């Protein structure tokens, strides 16, 4: 079930109404939301509900085992078993075909063609997201950061439909307390929710869908046939499209959850206004970056073990982040590319820091997990670019560094990506796909990155003063305008594939 559809709208009218009716009865509320979430998830293919429920029960049981184990060694064993099983689940559904094909491409030239079980494995929507949520729960229990929760609480946490299929990746500690201490039904932050939902719908339905059909899909299918301006604008357009698509989805998800009285963490913070690569990763898919930091970078050693250890861990974290996005060499290269970029930037920053920056800088500490500052003790100069170069030049450079990465990310193969780059420097000309409307859509998508937050907040405040009926009619008309401006049909969200 896709958010920007009438089917979802009708589903949500019912769910929202019943949810608030049951607000004073937490157990009933949880059971109802659990049922609604499974209906939402099973709408496209009910068989995946079995996978979700198996993951729920399995992880809950293993977390209980971690919690009850008497020795640290046993606790660790149970935790490793849980993480291993989750990775096997993820690996089977997501990477089976990739590994089989890669192995065959190596074996066949050597005359060692094996006959693996060449079966087609359907990718269950959202499997990466709920698997990561499950891992975070088990590891948090192991670390003593999280008490175990009831099976019902865990099942609702994992399946809660606003974040089930494409995040944000929420932690149990952020979600379960909100279920058990339901907010009163008298003060719903409707203006913030409406702002998020309308903004998300506009980004997804108008900007992302338009750019996809107008320029991105054609240039990435066959880059060899397009002129270099088409390819350049196509790459910019994809940067805007993927941002509009994914942040649009999370805006809607956060807004919907807010209407139900549940607050999610932010997932995007004007990422293309970043002035360094590290700054970009603190603004892009923030909940995944946080997850990778807490459950991969830090267990790998974080920045303990000297600069070389830190660079290795950083690189490996980004490499895994790339692989998480999908079973393709293009994603691995994309992750490695960002890893190399971050390492290079860190090395450069450290050398600049030694010359220019103060050694203590509170801003440079991890933002939202102060417990881990011990591991990340050495200041990480995130904004070194602003200290050494014009901020707009820094933004321009970082944006284009990211755009180059997106070309790998979007291309169907490495050959396709190389063909794209080759076309950028050889196929001189403007072409026909670069139109004023395409440029306008890119401009609209980008300008949102630089509008000060206070302007949005001021508008939100003014909107909150409107009579509810006027606000409701305004929302209806706004949705109408989106429906008119967007291409026909609703394309699936890009991140459903991940």
């Amino acid at each position, binding site marked *: 079930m896709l958010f920007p559809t009438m089917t979802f709208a009708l589903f949500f*009218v019912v769910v929202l109404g019943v949810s608030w009716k049951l607000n004073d009865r937490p157990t009933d509320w949880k059971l109802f939301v659990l049922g609604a979430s499974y209906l939402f998830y099973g709408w496209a293919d009910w068989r995946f509900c079995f996978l979700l429920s198996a993951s729920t029960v399995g992880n809950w049981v293993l977390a209980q085992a971690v919690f009850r184990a008497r020795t640290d060694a046993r606790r660790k064993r149970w935790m490793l078993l849980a993480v291993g099983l989750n990775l096997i689940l993820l690996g089977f559904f997501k990477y089976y*075909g990739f590994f089989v094909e890669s192995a065959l491409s190596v074996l066949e030239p050597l005359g060692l063609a094996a006959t693996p079980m*060449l079966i087609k494995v359907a990718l269950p929507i959202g499997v990466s997201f709920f698997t990561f949520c499950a891992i975070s729960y088990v590891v948090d229990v192991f670390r003593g950061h999280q008490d175990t929760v009831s099976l019902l609480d865990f099942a609702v946490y994992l399946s809660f439909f606003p974040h089930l299929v494409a995040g944000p990746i929420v932690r149990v500690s952020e979600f379960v307390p909100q279920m058990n201490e339901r907010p009163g039904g008298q003060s*719903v932050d409707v203006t913030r929710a409406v702002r998020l939902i309308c903004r998300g719908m506009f980004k997804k339905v108008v900007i992302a869908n338009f750019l996809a059909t107008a320029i991105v899909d054609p240039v990435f299918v066959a880059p060899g046939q397009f002129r270099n301006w088409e390819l350049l604008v196509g790459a910019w357009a994809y940067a805007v499209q993927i941002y509009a698509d994914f942040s649009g989805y999370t805006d809607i998800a956060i807004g919907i959850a807010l209407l139900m009285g549940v607050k999610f963490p932010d997932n995007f913070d004007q990422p293309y206004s970043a002035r360094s690569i590290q700054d970009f990763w603190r603004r892009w898919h923030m909940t995944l970056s946080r997850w990778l930091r807490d459950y991969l970078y830090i267990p790998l050693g974080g920045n303990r073990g000297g600069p070389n250890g830190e660079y290795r861990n950083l690189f490996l974290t980004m490499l895994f982040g790339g692989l998480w996005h999908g079973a393709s060499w293009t994603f691995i290269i994309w992750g490695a590319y960002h890893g190399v970029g971050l390492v290079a930037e860190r090395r450069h920053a450290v050398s600049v820091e030694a010359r220019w920056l103060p050694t203590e800088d509170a801003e440079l500490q991890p933002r939202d997990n102060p417990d881990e500052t011990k591991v990340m003790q050495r200041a990480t100069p995130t904004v070194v670019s602003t200290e050494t170069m014009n901020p707009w030049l820094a933004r321009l450079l970082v944006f284009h560094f990211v755009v180059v990465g997106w070309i790998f990310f979007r291309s169907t193969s490495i050959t396709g990506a190389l063909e794209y780059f080759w076309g950028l420097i050889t196929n001189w000309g403007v072409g026909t796909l670069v139109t004023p409307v395409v440029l306008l859509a890119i401009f609209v998508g980008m300008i949102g990155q630089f509008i000060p937050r206070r302007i949005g907040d001021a508008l939100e405040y003014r909107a909150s003063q409107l009579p509810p009926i006027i606000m409701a009619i305004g929302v209806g*008309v706004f949705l*109408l305008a989106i429906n008119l401006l967007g291409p026909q049909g609703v394309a699936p969200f890009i991140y459903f594939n991940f």
Partner: protein
Amino acid sequence: MNQTRSAQPRRRPRRVRRTQSAETVWKGLVVSLIVFVVLASGNMVASAEGMPLGWQRTLAVGTSAVIDRLTNLVSLNRPYDWAAEQLGVEQDNADFEFPVVAGPDAEPSVTTTTMPAVRVPTAANPLKVVVAGDSTAKALGDMLKSSVTDIPELSITNYGKVSTGLARSDYFNWGARMQEIVATDSPEVTLFMVGANDGQSILEGDGTVVAQYGSADWEEQYRERIAGIMDLNQGNGRRLIWVGEPNVGKGNVQEAVQTGNRIAQEEAKTRPWVTYFNVAALVAGPDGNFADYITLPDGTTARCYAGDGVHLSVKCMNLVMDSLVPVLTGLYSTSPGP
């Protein structure tokens, strides 16, 4: 002391957003949806008609049609319809009915057994080639464009449209669209590829169900539509390459695809201007059926389909191009000169 106090910037009082009760929020949501549905009732009917057949569609079509009629009485849907027309959102779904055809065993409708040769194109005056059909055609067209960049004698225009087919004229009428393409573009060669979305009942443009999927009438009605597309491409020396769908990895879709391919082959035999291009044979597994992985001519194994088991991967699309481009250029190729 006073001086110090006045030097400090005055803090602006924090403006607190007004919140609403859950009941008001719910009522607001309902009002928003009613506003949307009433003002865009025509669009709602079209969206409902595009749904797969079943009780959900019946309910959606019935409900939205009633709302549309009511809003039409008071002209509430006019602004949306006007804006949609101005923005070119509405599909020009001209009334088009596929003509009745005689069936595979009947005498050929055309007595001519040979076709005049396709003119030899030049780079200055390339052969006008149109690709049309569903999303598989769209991908085919995109790939064809990139495959013939070194053949300036071919000019490819891609009209492939996702989620379309021949069964649901209420959603997208390929008969009307093909008539329009022939009239406006005058293609010299048309490549047409559909079938992956046609495993469903056949509907007219107005939503009338003319044949339930699986019924005896379905094949007859589907044959009329295939033949109709072929006949629209007759005349002026125009050629049609009917590109058959590959076998697909979804049981219900595969049945429709196989039936469609068979009918297209049968109908092509009776029409000299039509060539049937058999993609399914090119990308089949060792047993001739669907296989997610196939062995390519160079001996390597490749995954042949995208994740949905319907659309071909780039590797297999390239395989198709290796055979399709010679068919295309073969239409006009002359013997190599001295």
